[in-house]
């Protein structure tokens, strides 16, 4: 019997021959934790009497949840984080104004390679699957990984999704990624790694792959990854040192399921409250008034998302009743957007631009909503209260859909603005 990418990665890091279902203690080669959990893991380690990390050089700490401290408490926490970083000798610390979103910049900077095994505190680390890494969130058990080097894992099965066809004008990978989790359903992907491949892959860039790997975790997948290919190699050349292994699943691997999925999702897709897999075509909700719009988050904060928004916003103004926040994913993306003139275009249209990172999606600490308001945004989740007030509503869509809706002041099909 052949092996899936997941089984190959976990066999390599454990030095064994593992298959789905086994309980193992695999050591990650890279670990990420964000600014809002550093104080917590330090407290947990102190309680355990741990004074040194198992391997501080594997750890990246990002400052993405609150890069600009907005309260005295947040400023105090940032200071504590800097002290903790110093205490444990953590080299890969990205403070405010460095790096950006911890699910995006490590890929840009070449920390992440195909076939690498990664563990993290935060769930959307699955983005690292964009370049073929297996990245698994372990939440509070990251304490054990930091102290002992590993934590138990049941080797997950794999659901293989072969993407076919091509995108329709006015749609992008966000529309596909949303519709896909709605169509696959929680039972299909429960505790599985969703592995993407297929004839459409050469047309999907790394930014689109980030988005594809971002959504399955929200319906209970263990992780998601893209089978690395020429697109991966082209992206990583100049970013990573050393050889790159284009790892792939064996043709006789034991997949839980193999699914063909067409990129033609017919029309832009909207996730309606209260979960990201409640997805409908934009025509079903078009016309609904919005007060808040946001482009950003680990699901859609790449340069291609900003370009798609700019295409719609060019020559238009944001609707008077809408406040529109744009959070580029990383310092690199923000800098590139500036060079292309996108930032001035956004500002002149009436948008606000924030420091790279999670933006409002990190629980609505900045740029949230009041009761009775409605947002259209590219965030990861639309649970009630995600952007502050419990009685506010969140609709999720692509950057183009968000930009079009921000201009009209109501949920809008972005194709109205194209051609």
């Amino acid at each position: 019997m052949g092996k899936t990418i997941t089984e190959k990665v976990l066999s390599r890091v454990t030095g064994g021959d593992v298959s789905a279902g086994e309980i193992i203690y695999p050591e990650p080669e890279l670990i990420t934790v964000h600014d809002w959990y550093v104080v917590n893991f330090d407290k947990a380690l102190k309680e355990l009497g741990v004074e040194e990390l198992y391997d501080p050089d594997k750890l990246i700490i990002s400052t993405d949840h609150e890069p600009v401290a907005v309260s005295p408490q947040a400023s105090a926490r940032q200071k504590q984080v800097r002290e903790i970083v110093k205490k444990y000798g953590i080299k890969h610390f990205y403070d405010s104004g460095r790096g950006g979103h911890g699910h995006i910049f490590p890929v840009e900077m070449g920390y992440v390679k195909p076939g690498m095994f990664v563990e993290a505190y935060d769930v959307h680390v699955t983005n690292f699957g964009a370049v073929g890494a297996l990245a698994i969130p372990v939440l509070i058990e990251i304490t054990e990984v930091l102290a002992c080097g590993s934590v138990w894992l049941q080797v997950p099965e794999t659901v293989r999704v072969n993407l076919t066809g091509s995108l329709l004008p006015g749609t992008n990978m966000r529309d596909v990624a949303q519709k896909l989790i709605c169509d696959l359903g929680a039972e299909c992907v429960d505790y599985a790694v969703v592995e993407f491949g297929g004839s459409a892959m050469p047309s999907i860039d790394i930014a689109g792959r980030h988005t594809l790997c971002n959504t399955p975790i929200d319906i209970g997948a263990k992780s998601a990854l893209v089978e690395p290919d020429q697109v991966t190699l082209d992206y990583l050349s100049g970013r990573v040192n050393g050889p790159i292994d284009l790892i792939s699943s064996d043709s006789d691997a034991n997949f839980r399921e193999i699914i063909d999925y067409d990129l033609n999702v017919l029309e832009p897709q909207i996730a309606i409250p209260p979960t990201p897999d409640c997805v409908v075509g934009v025509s079903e909700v078009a016309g609904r008034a919005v007060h808040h719009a946001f482009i950003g988050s680990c699901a859609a904060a790449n340069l291609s998302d900003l370009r798609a928004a700019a295409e719609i916003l060019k020559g238009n103004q944001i609707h008077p009743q809408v406040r529109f926040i744009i959070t580029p994913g990383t310092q690199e993306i923000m800098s590139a957007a500036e060079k292309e003139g996108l930032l001035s275009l956004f500002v002149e249209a009436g948008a606000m631009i924030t420091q790279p990172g999670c933006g409002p999606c990190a629980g609505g600490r900045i740029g949230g909503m009041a009761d009775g308001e409605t947002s259209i945004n590219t965030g990861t989740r639309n649970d009630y209260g995600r952007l502050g007030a419990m009685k506010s509503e969140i609709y999720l869509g692509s950057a183009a859909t968000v930009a079009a809706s921000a201009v009209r002041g109501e949920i809008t099909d972005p194709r109205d603005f194209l051609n």
Partner: protein
Amino acid sequence: MDWIYKGKCWKFGDSLGIDGDVMPLRFALERELDKTILRDYLMAGVDPEFPKKVSPGDIIVAGKRFGQGNPHIQGFLGIVGHGLGLVAESIPRGSFRNAINAGLPFLTGCDGVGKDVESGDDLEVNFLTGEFNNLSRNITRQYTPLDAKLREIIQAGGWAPSLAKRLSSLR
């Protein structure tokens, strides 16, 4: 610890929610981890008298998707607080991990177990071997026990004590 539980059966149906059915959500929001507090609210959503009726060694027999919903550990700590065991047809992944981390002896994947029992039956379950006996009805089943590596965590008393033990062995 003794892996053999002998006691009364408490039977429940499918899809008991971890928040609400098994334990009021407020304890998850308050991050309450004290078993002696949580035990008094076990099954509050389906049978508020439940904590008064059970004795250590009793066994909860549940249907499919026991503990479904947002994975919070409090319901499992409440079960451990009474010294109960759990046999379920299925447990969603997040709750499966929490049951281990709470130090709860359990069996899952026990298809059709609900048909073999009624509440009040006398049961004997060996969580080490997976042997399940309904003494009242003379029914014996062999289920798959948890992996030995996971039983070690339960044996230690759950995640925190197991981690402390692992650390002391590394030092």
